[in-house]
Structure formats: C-alpha cells, structure tokens
C-alpha cells in the first residue's frame, strides 16, 4: 500500500520541481485572483452628458408598401398604388410595379404632391373585362410644388385612372390622370410622415442679411439629406420668395457631390460656382445646413479644388463663421426699448431695472403704438383713435404732427413699423379693404405698387428684420384674425408686397404680433374663441405653437419682441395700464412680472 502511494507522490515531487512548480503556482494564483467578477465597489467616475440630438436627428418612420398581388381587382390596384406612392424608397420602386408602363412616371426625389385630407373614394366606371376606369374623388387640401413650396388650396378633385389587364391577367394602371401629370396624391398623414420642413437661406436685396425660405423636402433617407438640402439651396428659392431674394450661386451651378467624414462635410460644386462670391455662397450653405446635427463643420470645393473662406482661415468652415449674416441682422444685447409712460410721454425703458425715462416732454397722450426709427430721430405712432398716423421729431422734442389721416370713416391705421433701412410701413385699413403705405427715408408717404391683401381688413403688420418677409394679421373669410406671412419684392416704385400664406392654424384668433427672431413670431392670441388672450410663440416654419410664460397678465393689448431680449407686453386692467416682462426672459416658462406703469412697449432697431 505504501509503495502504491509512493509512486505518484514521487512523480508529483518530480513534476513540481524547479521552474515548472513556480509556473504552476503562478498560474494558480492568477486563476484564483483573476476570476471574472463584476465590480462591487470602487471609486466614483464622473461622466460628461451626451449631447442631445436635435429635432431632425430624431427617428422617423417609413411606410413599407406591398407589391401588387396577382388576384387584386382594379380598385385594389389603384388603392395599393396610392398607398405605395408614400414610400420614396428606391425611387418609388414598389409604386412603379403598379404601373403597366413604369418608365412613364418619374416622381423623382422631389415630386409635386397633391395633399388630400384622407384616403379618397374610388369608383369603377365601365364593365370591360380588360380595361376599366377607376374614378377617384376627394378633397384636396393643398399642393406641394416640386421646389417644396406648400400652397393651401382646398378643392374637390375627381380624376380617372385607366386600369388594364395585362397578358398575365393582372390589373395594372395603364394611364395616370392627365390632370395630375407627374403629381402624386398623398394624404395628409403620409405627407406629415414623409415631408419635413427645412429653411433654405437666400440674401435679402441688401446682399448681406439672409432670408429663410421654408420648404417641404421628402425625408427619404437621413444619409442623403445634406446633399438634398444643398441641392435645394443651389436650385434657388421657391416661387414664394422668387424675385424678393437673391442667391449667390451663379446660374447653372450644380452639386458635384457631398461627402461626410465624421461631422465634416465636403461640398463640391461644379465649375460654374467659380464666378460666384465664395463668402456669400458659404454663408447660404452654412445657414441651410445648420440644423443638421451630423454636419458640424464643412469645407467648400469647386471642381474638387478647396477654397479658403472666410479670408485667412483654413478651408474648414464652422457655422459660427457666418453669424453676421443672420436673418436677425447684427445682434447685440443693447436693445432699445420704448414705451408710452404713465404720463403719456414716449419714454425709454431700461431693460435692467425696467424704469421708464421720458424722451419727449411735450404733448402727453397724443400718440399711441409708437415706433422709433432705427436712427432714433423720429417716432411714428397713431392717434388714440388710430385714425391718424403721427410723426414726432425726437431730436427737437417735437410735437407730433399728422402724417396721414384715414380716408374711410371706418378706416384706421395698423401700428406702424420700421425696417432696417429706415423705411416706415403701415396699413390703412377698413372692413374688407386695406392699403399698404410706405415712407422711405426722407421721402413722402406713398402707397406701394402692389399689395396682395387689399381685399382684407388688416390688424397688424410687422416687417421681419431681414426686410423681406412681412407678417400680418388679417381677417379671413370666416371672420377670424389669422397670422399670414408674405414677402416684399421689387424695388423703387414697383414694390410688390404679396404672396401671403397662413402660418399656423393652431390659434383661433390673434390680436397682435412681433418678430421674436427670424423664425418665430411672438403673438397675442387665443387657442379657442372662448379662452383668454395669451402670449404665444409661433414658429413661421409651421412647427407647433408654444405658450410663453406663466402667470396672470390682465388684458394684453400689444406685444413687442426682439432677438435675444425680453418680450414686452402692454396690458390693460380696469385700473391702469402696465408693461409686463418675464422674470427671466431666457426661460420660456418663467413668470410674467407686471410692474412698469406704461403702455404700448416697442423696440427700435
């Protein structure tokens, strides 16, 4: 027995001699200590917060259509085609399967779209075994043109699809309605799903300030979105802004390619761009690509050759390089606010302590709704009955004199406004009629050549800081006061102010408005007709309206806003008139503070 045990023991002793023993011991120790275990303690590690992705970065949902089935009827084929039209994948590959002749239909990446309220009705006309007409009837809400401009135009539509049976006994659409051409029919929810609004930027006539041009682009794939945006910018503004703005891209410029390396995009333009102003083209691209979070920096190339902009910097540009071209104009924190003081004098309002200081001491109470010229030499306002347009020379502490009196007995003026060039704008309006007046610096007041809303009563008009877009509150057919956005085109005597389109349908009624920044209007309005008038922020690109501030305001009368400054609201309560501001204006939800006695606040440029 002892001998039996001795053998293995000896073997062990032999095997575990020298380095082998050491290595075995090391392996055992390592094995024991390095056992995979989750940490159950340890020191605290601080982590930086992830950057939040922006809105366009958020996920989107794509409709996946079905290809036509063999046993579908003619009606089903048309329904399937309408549904499949909403899928932009692979250049409408599936939708084309519904067509007998797929090559005849080229919707392209930016098709024109007729927007329907919901799925239209279909009806079969004819009883042929091989060919029938499917009639589609429905309500069209509006159209999106191929350049991305949405125009609301509600009408009843009835179009015919010709459906034929092919040799395989399958129904296929052999002829699309002539009335539609290449236009495709989509219902509202499809459009909401597929299309996104983007701002393209073009220069105002001063060739320095950019003007946003909101367009609808189909979001086919996030990957080629930057490319499509740049293509859209190069192809020029939509019909709405055409003539009013100026694009730095020379005619014929094309996008050779856009590649994205991490967050640096390289935009390669065709050789035509060489004649353009590099800085201005860069500014347009910078602002248009700005909202895309995947593009943080970018470089411009023309036919593959890098161009260095802005002067002296390297060829990689950031969006911060082009802040001076902001549609808001040059911004600083030196905002000059005015109000009509408690005693009825035009006063400056110190935005630090909110104390009004009168600038004129003559003729108190003669002028309401003042507007101060950019050079602060003149103040224009209305008489308390709003029938007279008054002007006062601030340099001479002057008494206001009448610039014009409304002709119509029911006529009145909207609160006047100045644009950056020192041009004065106001609308003389009476029920069912209006006229836009303009006074250039040092010239007499003149009506503009064309005014697109001359058949409507206007309640407010504010020219945006870019000097091209105009926001108005107009009375529409059903008697509601609606915010509309138009543009001023032309120059000299042939000024055309028109192309007004509704901005939002979320507010039932609006009373007053002011430009908060290039994309947002501060408005006084109400969501339904029986609620109180409250301040709201209304983005002009059609996004959701949000309320501004909390707390009671009394009866808001007028609103004034400026980029980067507090929104001021003139309110009236039974006893007195007050000017309200937010306790912390950078926080949208901060409380309203009504402490300044005064009325009709306004900002000068």
């Amino acid at each position, binding site marked *: 027995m002892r001998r039996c045990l001795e053998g293995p023991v000896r073997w062990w002793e032999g095997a575990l001699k020298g380095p082998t023993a050491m290595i075995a011991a090391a392996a055992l120790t390592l094995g024991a200590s390095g056992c995979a275990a989750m940490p159950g303690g340890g020191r605290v590690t601080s982590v930086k917060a992830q950057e939040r992705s922006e809105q366009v970065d958020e996920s989107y*949902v*794509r*409709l*996946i259509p079905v290809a036509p089935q063999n046993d579908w009827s003619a009606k*089903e084929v048309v329904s399937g085609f309408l549904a499949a039209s909403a899928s932009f994948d692979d250049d409408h590959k599936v939708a084309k399967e519904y067509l007998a002749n797929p090559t005849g239909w080229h919707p392209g990446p930016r098709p024109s779209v007729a927007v329907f309220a919901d799925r239209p009705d279909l009806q079969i006309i004819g009883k042929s075994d091989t060919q029938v007409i499917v009639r589609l009837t429905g309500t069209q809400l509006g159209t999106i043109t191929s350049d991305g401009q949405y125009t609301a135009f509600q009408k009843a539509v009835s179009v015919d699809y010709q459906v034929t049976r092919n040799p395989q006994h399958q129904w296929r659409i052999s002829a699309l309605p002539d009335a539609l051409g290449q236009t495709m029919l989509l219902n509202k*929810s499809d459009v909401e*799903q597929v299309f996104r609004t983007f701002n393209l930027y073009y220069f105002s006539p001063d060739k320095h300030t950019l003007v946003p041009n909101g367009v609808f682009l189909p979001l086919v*794939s*996030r*990957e080629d979105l930057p490319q499509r945006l740049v293509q859209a910018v190069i192809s020029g503004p939509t019909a709405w802004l055409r003539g009013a703005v100026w694009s730095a891209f020379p005619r014929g410029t094309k996008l050779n390619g856009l590649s994205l390396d991490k967050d640096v995009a390289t935009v390669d333009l065709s050789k035509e761009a060489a004649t353009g102003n590099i800085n201005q083209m860069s500014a347009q691209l910078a602002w248009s690509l700005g909202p895309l979070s995947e593009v943080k920096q970018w470089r411009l190339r023309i036919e593959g050759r890098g161009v260095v902009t802005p002067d002296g910097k390297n060829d990689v540009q950031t969006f911060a390089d082009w802040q001076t071209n902001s549609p808001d104009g040059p911004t600083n924190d030196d905002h000059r606010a005015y109000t009509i003081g408690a005693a009825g004098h035009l006063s400056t309002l110190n935005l630090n302590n909110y104390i009004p200081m009168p600038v004129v001491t003559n003729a108190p109470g003669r002028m309401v709704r003042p507007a101060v010229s950019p050079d602060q030499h003149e103040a224009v306002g209305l008489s308390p009955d709003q029938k007279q347009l008054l002007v006062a020379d601030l340099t001479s502490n002057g008494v206001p004199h009448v610039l014009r009196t409304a002709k119509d007995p029911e006529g009145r003026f909207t609160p006047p406004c100045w644009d950056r060039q020192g041009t004065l704008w106001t609308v003389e309006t009476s029920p069912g009629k209006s006229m836009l007046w303009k006074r250039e610096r040092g010239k007499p007041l003149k009506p503009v050549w064309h005014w697109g809303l001359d058949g409507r009563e206007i309640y407010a008009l504010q020219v945006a800081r870019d000097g091209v877009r105009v926001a108005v509150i107009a009375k529409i057919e059903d008697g509601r006061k609606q915010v509309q956005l138009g543009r001023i085109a032309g120059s000299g005597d042939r000024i055309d102010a028109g192309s007004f389109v509704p901005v939002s349908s979320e507010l039932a009624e609006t009373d007053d408005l002011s430009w908060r920044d290039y994309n947002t209007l501060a408005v006084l309005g109400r969501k339904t007709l029986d609620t109180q008038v409250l301040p709201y922020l209304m983005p002009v690109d059609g996004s959701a309206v949000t309320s501004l501030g909390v707390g009671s305001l009394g009866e808001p009368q007028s609103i004034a806003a400026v980029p980067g400054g507090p929104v001021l609201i003139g309110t009236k309560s039974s006893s007195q008139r007050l000017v309200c501001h937010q306790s912390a204006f950078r926080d949208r939800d901060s409380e309203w503070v009504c402490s300044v006695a005064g009325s009709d606040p306004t900002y000068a440029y």
Partner: protein
Amino acid sequence: MTPPAPPAPAAPPAAVPAPAGRVRRVVWWPVRRWLGRVQRVTRRVASAAYARWRRSIQVRVVTSTLFISAIVVAILGFFLMQQITTALMDGKTKAALAQLDEGLGSLQRDVGVSNDSGDRLRSAANGLKSRSGPSGLYEVYVRDTTQIYIDGYATNELRAQSVPQRLRDELRSGTTGTRAYTYGKLSYIGHRPSERGLIVAGKTSHYEVYYLFPLTQEQHTLTIVSRSLAGVGIVLVLLLAAIASLVTRQVVIPVRLAAQGAQRLAAGRLDERMRVRGEDDLARLARSFNDMAANLQEKIRELEDLSQVQRQFVSDVSHELRTPLTTIRIAGDLLYENRDTFDDPAVGRSAELLQSQLERFESLLADLLEISRHDAGAATLDAESLDMRDLVLRTVGDVQGLAERKGSKVVLQLPGEPCMAEVDRRRVERILRNLLVNAVEHGEGEDIVVSVAADRDAVAVTVRDHGVGLKPGEGQMVFDRFWRADPARARTTGGTGLGLSISKEDAQLHGGWLQAWGESGQGSQFRLSLPRAAGAELRGSPLPLVPPGAGGARPLFAELEAGD
C-alpha cells in the same frame, strides 16, 4: 549536410550594348537572381532545420510541445468563444424580449385592439422607436395584418427585407402573445452597410411587432475578447515551449554527456567515466553507465589475458613437441633407411608412412610456431634490398620438380630491368613457394604463369593457374587457417592448411597485400604486392588482380572484397 551550392550565375551582359529584344532579359535578370537566392536560402534553412530536428531531442520536444499545445489552446479558445458568445447572446435576447414585451404593451395601449387606423399604427411605431433613446439601439418594424395595401411601418432606414420570411411565417401561424426570435442580416436603404442582428418578434391581436437589434456592439465585444484570447493563447503556447525547452535541456545535457562518454569508451578509452551528480534518474543513469564501463573494462582485460595465455600455450606446446619429435625423427630415419631389411614388406611400408607423416608433422609444427610468432607479434622483418626476379627464379627452380611431376609447366613473365625492393628474403620466398605449390597442386596440369612487375612505389608478383578456380566468396576464405577448398580431399599433398595464412601475415608484415582471385572453371590468380621501401604505405599494385581476358564485373568486385 548542405548541398553544394549551384554554380553562381554568370554576370549579366550589362556592358554589352544589348539589342532591343534582350532588354527584357536584362530587366528580368536581377529578379531571377534574387528568386534563385531566395530558393537557395530556403533550401539551406529547410535542410538545416531538418538536420537539427533529426539530431536534437530538444528541438523535437519543443516543436512537438509547440504543435500540440497550439492545437489544445486553439480547441480551448474555440470552446471558450462559443461559451462567451452564447452567454452574450442569451443576455441580449433576454433584454430584447423584455423590450418586446414593453413595446407590445404600449402598442396595445396606443392603438387598442379594435382600432385599425393606419395613422395610429404609424404614431405607435414612432412611439416605439422613440423609446430606443439617442444611441439608436434598435429599429422597429410594425405590421398590421389587416392592412391590405401597407406591409408595415419601419423606422429610419430599415428595409422590410431585414425581417426574414421564416420569422413572419412563425408569427403568422402563432396565436396572440406569440413571441419568437431569430438572427438575421439587417439591411438599410441608402449606403449604410447591412449588419448582423437579433430580431425578436411578438404578436398581439392582429399586430406584429419586430424589434431588430444590430449586434455591432456585441460583435465589437467578441472581437476584443477573441483578440485577447488569441494573444493569451500565443503567449501560453510560447511559454509552454519555453518550459519544454528548459525542462528538456535539463534532461538532454546529461544524456549528451553520457553519449560523449559512450563514444570515448567505444574509441577504446576504457577509463572514461561519467560524473555522478545528485541522486535523480540521470544520476542513476550515470552510475549504471559507469558500472557498465567498469564491467566491460574488466571483461576485456580478462579476455586479453586469456588469449595471451592461449597463444603462449600454443607456442610452448610447439616448442615442447620439438624435442621428442627430434628423437622420433632420428628413430624414424633409422627405420626408413633400413626398410628394405625387414622381412615383412608391411613393416617396410609402415616405415615409409611414418617417415612421410613425420615430415608433415615437422612442417606443421614449424608452421604453428611461425603463426604463433605472428600472433604474439614476435615476428620481425629482416629486410634487405633484393631483386624480385631472383627470388621468383629461385622459388620456381625449387618447385620445378613438383610441377613436372604434376605435368604443369611454369611460364615466367619477368621484366627486363631489376625489380628491387626492401624485403625479407626468407618470408617472401616462403610466400612465393606457397603460392607456386598451391598453383601446381590445383593447376590440373595446366600452365602456371608467374608475372613480376614494378612501378615507382611497389612491386608485384602474380601466380596464375588454370585449375578449378575459386567459388564466389572463397577469395577471402583461402587465407583462413586450416581452410580447404574441398574438405573431402585427402590431405595427402603438402599443405598444412596454414601456408596461405602465414603468407598473408608475412605480406602484411611487409605492409603489402596478398590477394586472391578465382572463378569456377577459370582458374585462379594470387597477387603479392609489396612496397619498395620497407614500412611504406602501399597505394596501388603494378599488376591487376584479375588476369587480363578473364572475368567481367564480378572479379572486379572480388578485388574490392579482397582488398584490405
């Protein structure tokens, strides 16, 4: 070991203005030379490696350890990766199914059971997707099976083809609450490359929800793990090889020492011993080796002593027999001389017989003495410068009578000039006599040719007979002691059986050769070659062993066989 290097390529004809057609060759030339060099180096390395492999236990052990441990580590690594992958996928699947449950719940809340509006489903899909957070952990595909024209809603760039048909079938055949998962390839529209993914699916009433999780993160983890495993495996294998090398070194060094000792022992250095260190197995080996060496040494000494004793004995016996033999001889001579005086003729005949056997006995005794002198190393060379032709003539004269009796004629082929050599006259005469007597006896009455030749270093004598010849292999055996070509033949004529043995010893004493050639029916030839100067080394013979005109390839072989 190394194969002879191929002849170096000739230098390219660079200086010669080459015609256009040769430019290509000139361009290719360095490449080919380089290739050739690589080939040579490779071959050299391979053969060197093979040689090392064959010669060194250490190399063999380390190589096999490397090989085997690499296989083992590879197998282990494979299984480990399998385990890790399974664990990782299990975790992912569990999390995915939990996500699916949550998604199904929210879908039920959002769209309700009875609602079939596409828009609601669409917003539900949006809602499901928005729960993935900013990192985009998964994509969702939602289907409403009651919708005819819409297959479903996919989030982001996901293609509907990412959901494999087998999963759809599984869900279609299942009831509400069915959950299933599979792995597939997620494909996307645009340029995004497709990737592997985990696809979980669930069904509630007529809605089907598919969650597609890209497995990029897992793939990344697995890549890291597999890389570290590979690294650890390589280190482990190398470590094992190093250990094996270290351990074998400890074993191989003593073995090499032992081999060295054995070699020296084999070379005759019987005093060689191994050093014994410690008391392990190798020490035991050394001790056994030393014991063996001691035993061998002892045995060899014993055997040497014994052989010495035997030689002494033979010498002593020969000497001791001489004295009585002399007496017997005198008596025998007396009897022989008076044989005619005996009445009985049988007695006379006996006296004759006695006389002849006595002579035979005497010569046998002389041969024994001679050979024992050779064995004891006591034979000495009494060299003087002599003309071989004289020796040959004298010996032939001695044998002439015997040859005539046998009917043979001795033909001499002697050179014109003297063939001087430093030889022992007695011994060379004895050799020649032995050869001639042998030739006469086996010559069957045919002619016997004796040739003499000399060159710068050596002289040679051949004795050619045309008798029965020798059988293959007998060329060597003729020189064995007491060997007879035909054992049945009576030992009547001459020959004690020691003659050729003694002759060979004599030739070797001169530093010469004594060789035999023979072929059945062709007769035989013996050649004695001696160096001209006593003690000089013999390099070749002036005469061929095989007589010209006899034999083919075989006799040549016999020469090689006979040559010492």
